């Protein structure tokens, strides 16, 4: 009775005291509406960009989970990694990333502590560090038409992207960086407690699961796919194949549209090479407004290559298709090639108020000198723009890494010129890294390069000197292209791109990717990437002559000779035009697709570039993600199980005692 009264009193007191306590079901507590909600909040998905497993003929590079399982490890910051016992997921900032990786490769005791690496992102990074380039100091030196002798085009290069790592590495986004920094701090503060924050990496690569560790075996097993894509070439004005006139000599302007980086999905390549791509597109746009292009005595051809960062796949395959006289190169006779101008990295030409470009020349001396003179003439016509073009230094061993190297190896007598914004070393401190983004270049530099090249090409093709000042490069087009190709907003959903294609993603990435299915020689291949399709549609539109079937949709009446259907995806109907614009598959010349699988062709010693081709492939993978959550250590878990068992047994004992007491009470009848 007294107990009862006591409890009543107690609960009444509590009820009265409640308003005074700081009780509030405030907004701090998350409200869950279901058990799946609870489970979701226990596991936080982290936005990260992975480094994947790539293979070549002699081995592999890149990163992968060491087996079939996900990797789970506590999050530790790099400066505290040395004291940490056991393996950890190391959180490191970009300026210490290179030193961490080199330590892992050298020190095997340290490398056993590394279960995975998480690289932080921050906005001030570009200003703080001197340079970050995971590529080597002379990229693709083995393809150069000259002996390299350790010349350093890329002095900031560390070469870390060409090594193999047996653990996952992810680049974090800005928000993920702060989440994981908090998690690491919490781990440090509560070292004695029995919980810790862990990161779970899922970067399981099929080639690791099936133990195929080089391109040949993985292609045979079907656990990887070769790198490649679709290059685009276009002629201005369109080439009339059925014409009986003799083919004109060709002035070729080219650039590449693919970049590379340590992290697969963060290869923007703003300076190298997208600044060149944007300049070329602006050149085509400027020249397309001129009249009388058919009367010029030379033919202008524009080529946008892909796969150039991975063994010059685009340019080598271009020559092979020409040798095979494939449909993709119909109308283009490379024997008529007179001059080749490549637009390289042109986004950083500012110095002391002038925009200075350098012409790296190679090939037949007299015609090359002629080309350079035209370039200088163009520079003089642009006197108000403070643009300067100089010859590259003679102490350079030759042209910088560029697609021109392929042309020089195939046709050593060609007259070739690469326009770059640097002389002997890259002005791009972030070559082939995820930091080579929009803030690394300046739009006016690209406009200057485009103006130079447009006027040069016009004169080289036989254009009138008097008309040269009518060639104007559209600066707003350049700005628009920068926003479409180098930023996530507006990204590929910008008006200009959506005018031509329906893109599959919004954030652009210029990694060449893998070839899906059979490389197609069709007019409209099924699996061309977003940027390839945009470039094809853009060039076809700018170099086009309206067809007789003006404005009609392509479905019925667009299969005549030289007729193309552009903007087919954008509005479903498309527009029929006359244009010479073709896709050319870009993949290793040592591969052939036969009956559903890829075959590595034996070494053909006649083609000396094939000898050095590593034949890059990318491993297949299922899903890639990271998440973070809190775990209790296993002793605690076992203690809880023990507690549950003890409570159950104790209750049983007490009940049995009560039973016997009661039955004794009943029996005393």
């Amino acid at each position, binding site marked *: 009775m007294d107990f009862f009264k006591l409890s009543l009193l107690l609960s009444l007191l509590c009820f009265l005291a409640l308003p005074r306590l700081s009780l509030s079901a405030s907004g701090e507590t998350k409200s869950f509406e279901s058990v799946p909600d609870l489970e979701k909040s*226990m596991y936080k998905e982290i936005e990260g960009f992975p480094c994947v497993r790539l293979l070549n003929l002699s081995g592999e590079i890149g990163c992968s989970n060491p087996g079939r399982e996900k990797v789970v490890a506590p999050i530790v910051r790099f400066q505290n990694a040395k004291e940490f016992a056991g393996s950890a997921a190391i959180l490191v900032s970009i300026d210490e990333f290179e030193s961490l990786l080199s330590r892992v490769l050298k020190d095997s005791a340290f490398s056993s502590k590394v279960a995975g690496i998480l690289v932080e992102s921050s906005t001030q990074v570009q200003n703080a560090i001197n340079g970050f380039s995971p590529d080597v100091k002379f990229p693709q030196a083995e393809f150069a038409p000259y002996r390299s002798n350790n010349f350093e085009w890329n002095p900031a290069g560390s070469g870390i992207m060409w090594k193999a790592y047996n653990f996952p590495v992810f680049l974090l986004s800005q928000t993920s960086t702060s989440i994981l920094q908090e998690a690491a701090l919490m781990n440090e503060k509560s070292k004695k407690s029995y919980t810790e924050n862990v990161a779970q990496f899922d970067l399981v690569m099929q080639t690791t699961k099936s133990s195929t560790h080089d391109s040949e075996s993985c292609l045979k097993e079907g656990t990887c796919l070769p790198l490649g894509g679709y290059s685009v070439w276009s002629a201005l004005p369109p080439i009339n194949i059925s014409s009986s006139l003799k083919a004109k000599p060709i002035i070729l302007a080219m650039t590449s549209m693919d970049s590379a980086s340590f992290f697969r999905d963060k290869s923007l390549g703003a300076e190298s090479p997208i600044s060149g791509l944007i300049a070329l597109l602006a050149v085509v746009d400027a020249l397309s407004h001129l009249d009388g292009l058919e009367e010029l005595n030379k033919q202008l051809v524009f080529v946008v290559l892909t796969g150039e960062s991975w063994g010059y796949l685009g340019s080598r395959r271009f020559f092979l298709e020409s040798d095979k006289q494939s449909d993709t190169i119909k109308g283009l006779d490379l024997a008529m090639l007179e001059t080749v101008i490549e637009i390289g990295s042109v986004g950083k030409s500012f110095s002391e108020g002038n925009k200075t470009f350098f012409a790296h020349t190679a090939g037949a001396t007299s015609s090359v000198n002629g080309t350079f003179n035209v370039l200088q003439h163009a520079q003089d016509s642009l006197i108000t723009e403070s643009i300067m073009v100089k010859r590259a230094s003679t102490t350079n061993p030759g042209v910088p890494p560029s697609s021109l190297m392929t042309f020089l190896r195939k046709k050593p007598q060609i007259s070739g010129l690469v326009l770059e914004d640097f002389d002997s070393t890259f002005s791009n401190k972030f070559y082939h890294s995820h930091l080579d983004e929009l803030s690394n270049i300046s739009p006016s530099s690209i406009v200057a390069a485009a103006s130079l090249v447009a006027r040069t090409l016009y004169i080289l093709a036989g254009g009138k000197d008097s008309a040269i000042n009518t060639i104007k490069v559209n600066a707003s087009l350049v700005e628009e292209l920068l926003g479409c190709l180098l930023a996530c907003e507006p990204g590929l959903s910008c008006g200009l791109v959506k005018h031509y294609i329906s893109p599959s993603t919004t954030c652009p990435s210029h990694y060449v990717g893998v070839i899906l299915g059979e490389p197609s020689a069709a007019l409209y291949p099924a699996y061309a990437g977003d940027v390839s399709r945009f470039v094809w549609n853009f060039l076809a539109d700018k170099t086009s002559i309206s067809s007789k079937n003006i404005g009609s949709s392509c479905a019925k009446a667009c299969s005549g000779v030289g007729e193309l259907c552009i903007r087919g995806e954008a509005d479903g109907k498309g527009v029929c035009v006359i244009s010479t614009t073709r896709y050319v598959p870009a993949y290793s010349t040592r591969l052939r697709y036969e009956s559903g699988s890829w075959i590595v062709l034996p070494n053909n010693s006649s083609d000396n570039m094939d000898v050095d081709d590593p034949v890059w492939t990318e491993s297949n993978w299922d899903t890639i993600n990271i998440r973070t959550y809190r775990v209790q250590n296993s002793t605690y878990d076992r203690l809880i199980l023990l507690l549950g068992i003890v409570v159950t047994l104790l209750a049983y004992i007490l009940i049995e005692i009560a039973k016997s007491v009661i039955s004794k009470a009943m029996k005393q009848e």
Partner: protein
Amino acid sequence: MTVAAGIGYALLALGPSLSLFTAVISHKPFLILTLLSSTLVWLMSLIALSAVWRGFIPFKTAAWWPYALLILTSVASQEALRFFLWRLYKRMEELLDAFADRVSKPRLLITDKMQIALAGGMGHGVAHAVFFCISLLTPAFGPATYYVEKCSRIPFFLVSAMIALAFVTIHTFSMVIAFSGYSEGNRTDQYFAPVVHLAAGVLTLINLGSGGCIIGIPLLYGMAMLTLLHCGKLVWRRLTENRRQGNLY
């Protein structure tokens, strides 16, 4: 937290019920039936209450009184259901006793009646544990753990299991007290179950405060102890009274 911890939490909440089942309920089929139907009825009552309140949750205000209102109405409804179950039980007892008379077999002993009440109470307790703890336990079997900000020293699932164990105890034994009170006409025993149920419900509101679970849970176990002790006293008193009277019923 892994499978070991998940099983541990489930055992913590329902282990004693399992022991009670094995030791007492499982020997008599009628008790098993009582337990099952009681669990079903109480689970349905909880589902009905949650359906009614679903329209008002989540509460937009930061105050505590909507939760007090929720607890008040739910406890009141459940206690009304308890009284209704008592009337049902009384009808069934009359039927069983009449049947026993017809076939000249002994009527229900006092211990039988208390065991039926115990089975009924255990059904209430198990329904509470399943509804409030076991249904949330699936994430506990995975690798991650969860801590609520306002109770940051104890994992959420452990808190949930401990509270469920306290309520299982309270519900199981307060049914015995309530049925005995109704049959004897003892006012204290009749009011015991509703008051203790309400007090325990209100005590859980302390968990809304930061660090409140450290105060709230021990207090809740105090209520459970109180229930156990009162039930023990009651059972002892009735058994010894009957012995003196020479009456087993």
